[in-house]
């Protein structure tokens, strides 16, 4: 008996879940494919992104020949990591004031939550990040590479 199935039965025995819920959970477990060694070997690990790239192209109506303004920025991920570590050096009083200022602006974000271990998880997720803003006068593209 698998560990997950045992936990479900224990929860059922303890009365934490109903028989219907237990049945649904067990069915979900059975649907879930077991990871095979062959599958893990054949799927290559996605390369971790090294840079965040920001591309901006804005139409300039004041330009005589109509050339757009282009901005191309590439920021190393390591710099982001170091920046967050720098954030950890902010004294607690200053951090609290910054949190308060953010809340006043409607941003409900706690700077204390930014920690190196959280950042690693964030960077992992950035792998698939791609933001495209396409408006009449400007195009913005943010992605990781």
């Amino acid at each position, binding site marked *: 008996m698998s560990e997950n199935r045992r936990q479900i039965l224990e929860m059922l025995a303890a009365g934490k879940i109903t028989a219907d819920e237990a049945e649904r959970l067990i069915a979900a477990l059975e649907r879930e494919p077991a990871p095979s060694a062959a599958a893990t070997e054949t799927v290559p690990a996605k390369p971790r992104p*090294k*840079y965040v790239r920001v591309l901006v192209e804005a139409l*300039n109506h*004041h*330009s*005589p*020949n109509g*050339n757009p*303004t*282009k*901005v*191309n*920025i*590439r*920021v*190393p991920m*390591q*710099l982001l*990591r*170091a*920046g967050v*570590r*720098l954030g*950890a*050096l902010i*004294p*607690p009083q200053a951090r609290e004031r910054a949190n308060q200022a953010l809340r006043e602006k409607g941003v409900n974000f706690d700077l204390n939550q930014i920690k190196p271990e959280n950042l690693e998880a964030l960077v992992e997720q950035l792998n698939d990040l791609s933001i495209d803003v396409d408006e009449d006068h400007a195009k913005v593209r943010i992605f990781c590479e």
Partner: protein
Amino acid sequence: MPPLLMQIHVAGRKGKSLRLWVPLFLLWVLLLPFAVVLLPALFIVCAVADIDPFLAVSTMMSLIASLSGTHIEVDTPDAFLFFHIL
């Protein structure tokens, strides 16, 4: 490892252009004596602000070391700016 070179290119549409290769490794060498002199002051500031001075130094070092690869390019109808750290 800290960045060793910085490439700057500024160009105006009227033909004026400035290309610079800045040897950052020389800059680090020049700044090193100042860093040594300023280190006690940094420790005092860290003690007052209740910050781990070693963490502060290591963070600053990692910040400088991670600058390599930074690339900024701005192309406007009037001017062109290129900034790259190697």
